[in-house]
C-alpha cells in the first residue's frame, strides 16, 4: 500500500465508508430495510464528516464554502429594506408581506450577487401553520407565468433536492424533483458565482421521515419556505424583488444540531413571539414565525420597526464565527493502541500505533507514534 501521510485522510475515510456501507448492505436487506435507507445513512455520514471540517479535502469545495459561511455574516438585510417596503403594497399578495425568510437565493449564474442559501430547519418548522393558507389559495395568489427561472437549490441533509424557481413576477416557488440528490453535487455548481462573495450556508436539515413524497412539491410564495417532517406547506410571503433583493443569508454553519431535534418531531409550533415587526429584511436571520393574518396589519402599517433581532440565532452565528477561527476549544484526543509504555523515574516514553488524532479540530492518522514526556 502506498505510504499515507495525513493528506490521505479523506481517501482513507472514504474507503472505510465504502467498506462499511457495502458490508452492511446484506444486513439491511435481511432486516427488510430498504436500500434507500442505506444510502441515506451514507449521505448523513458523509455530510457530518464534511461539516466537522476535520478532514481536508473530504469535500473540498464544500469546505471552502463552509469556511466562507463561517467568516462572513451577512446583514444584507439592510439593503433590501426599502425594496421590501415597496413591495408590500403590491397587489399580488392576499397575505401580508412578511419579513423575508431567512433565505434568499440567487442563482449564481444569473445574478451577480446571490449567495446560495439553504434553509435552516428550525425556522422552517415554525412557519408551519396549517391554517394560514390552503394550497389552493396560495396557488391562486401566485401567478404562474411562463417565465420561470431556477433560482436555487435547497438541499435537505437527507439528500433531497428542492428547486426554487422564480417566476417573472418575482414570486418564488419550490419544487421537489422526484429523485434525491446528493447534497454536494448540487451545491457546487451553483457556487461558482460571478464574483459573489456571499457565504454559502450549508444546511443540515434533519432527515425527513419517509422523505417528502413527490407530490409534495411546495408552491411557496417568495419568502417563506416551509418544510416539515412529512409534508410541505405553502406559506405566502412577500413578493421577491426582481433583483438580488432577497439576499438573505443565514449563517447557520454551526447551528444545525439544535435544529435537528425539532425537525424530527412531528408537531410544529407556530412561533408568534419575538419578532413582531414588519421589516422583512431584518428578520432574515430570524425565525419566520408569523401568522400571516397578523402580519398583514402590521406590515401595512408600514412599520419598519427597526430590526428586531432574535438573539439566539444571531448570537449563535457569532459563536460559530469564532469557532471558525484557529482558536478551537476542541478536546484534542488521540485514540490508538500501545506497543510499549516505558517509565524511568519521571521520564515516560510512549510507543503507540494505529492512531487517529483530532488536534485543533482536524483529524490526523498515524501508524506509529513515539513520544516523550516528563511527569
Amino acid at each position: 500500500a502506498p505510504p499515507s501521510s495525513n493528506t490521505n485522510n479523506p481517501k482513507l475515510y472514504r474507503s472505510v465508508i465504502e467498506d462499511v456501507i457495502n458490508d452492511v448492505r446484506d444486513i439491511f436487506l435481511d432486516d427488510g430495510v430498504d436500500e434507500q435507507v442505506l444510502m441515506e445513512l451514507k449521505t448523513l455520514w458523509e455530510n457530518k464528516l464534511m461539516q466537522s471540517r476535520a478532514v481536508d479535502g473530504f469535500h473540498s469545495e464544500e469546505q471552502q464554502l463552509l469556511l466562507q459561511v463561517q467568516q462572513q455574516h451577512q446583514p444584507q438585510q439592510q439593503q433590501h429594506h426599502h425594496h421590501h417596503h415597496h413591495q408590500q403594497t403590491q397587489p399580488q399578495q392576499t397575505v401580508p408581506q412578511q419579513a423575508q425568510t431567512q433565505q434568499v437565493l440567487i442563482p449564481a449564474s444569473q445574478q451577480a450577487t446571490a449567495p446560495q442559501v439553504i434553509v435552516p430547519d428550525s425556522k422552517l418548522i415554525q412557519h408551519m401553520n396549517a391554517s394560514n393558507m390552503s394550497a389552493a389559495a396560495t396557488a391562486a395568489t401566485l401567478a404562474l407565468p411562463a417565465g420561470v427561472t431556477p433560482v436555487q437549490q435547497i438541499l435537505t441533509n437527507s439528500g433531497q433536492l428542492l428547486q426554487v424557481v422564480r417566476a417573472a413576477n418575482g414570486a418564488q416557488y419550490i419544487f421537489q424533483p422526484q429523485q434525491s440528490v446528493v447534497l454536494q453535487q448540487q451545491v457546487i455548481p451553483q457556487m461558482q458565482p460571478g464574483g459573489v462573495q456571499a457565504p454559502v450556508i450549508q444546511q443540515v436539515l434533519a432527515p425527513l421521515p419517509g422523505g417528502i413524497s413527490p407530490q409534495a412539491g411546495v408552491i411557496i410564495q417568495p419568502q417563506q419556505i416551509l418544510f416539515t417532517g412529512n409534508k410541505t406547506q405553502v406559506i405566502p410571503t412577500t413578493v421577491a424583488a426582481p433583483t438580488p433583493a432577497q439576499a438573505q443569508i443565514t449563517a447557520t454553519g454551526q447551528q444545525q444540531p439544535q435544529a435537528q431535534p425539532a425537525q424530527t418531531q412531528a408537531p410544529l409550533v407556530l412561533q408568534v413571539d419575538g419578532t413582531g415587526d414588519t421589516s422583512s429584511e431584518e428578520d432574515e436571520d430570524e425565525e419566520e414565525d408569523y401568522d400571516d393574518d397578523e402580519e398583514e396589519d402590521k406590515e401595512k402599517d408600514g412599520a419598519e420597526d427597526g430590526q428586531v433581532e432574535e438573539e439566539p440565532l444571531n448570537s449563535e452565528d457569532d459563536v460559530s464565527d469564532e469557532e471558525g477561527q484557529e482558536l478551537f476549544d476542541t478536546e484534542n484526543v488521540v485514540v490508538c493502541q500501545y506497543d510499549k509504555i516505558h517509565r524511568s523515574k519521571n521520564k515516560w516514553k510512549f510507543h503507540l500505533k494505529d492512531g487517529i488524532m483530532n488536534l485543533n479540530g482536524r483529524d490526523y492518522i498515524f501508524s506509529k507514534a513515539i513520544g516523550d514526556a516528563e511527569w
Partner: protein
Amino acid sequence: MAYQLYRNTTLGNSLQESLDELIQSQQITPQLALQVLLQFDKAINSALAQRVRNRVNFRGALNTYRFCDNVWTFVLNDVEFREVTELIKVEKVKIVACDGKSKCFPNFFESKTTLRTLES
C-alpha cells in the same frame, strides 16, 4: 472482535450520529445500528493496520496517567506533534490507548470504567 476504540473519532462519531437519526426516525432498529457499528469497528481497525504507513513524534509534559483494564489514558500539556510535513502544537491532549498486542476483548469497552475513560 475488533476494538470499539475508534468509535470516538470524527469518523466514528459521525456514523453514530447518523445511525441515531435513523433510529429516531424509525428507519432502522437499534440492533441494526449496532451491527453497523460492529462492522465499522472491523473496517477501521483493518484500514488503520493496513492502509496507513506514517510516523509521528511528540513531546510534552505529562499531566496525568491512568492504567485500568489494560487501557492507558494520558493527559499531556504543551505538546508538539511532529510529522515529516507538519508541526502541530496543542496545550492539552488526551491519549487513550488500548493494548496493541491483544485484539480480542469482546466486552472490553462495555465496562463502565473503560467507557468513562474513553468518553471523558
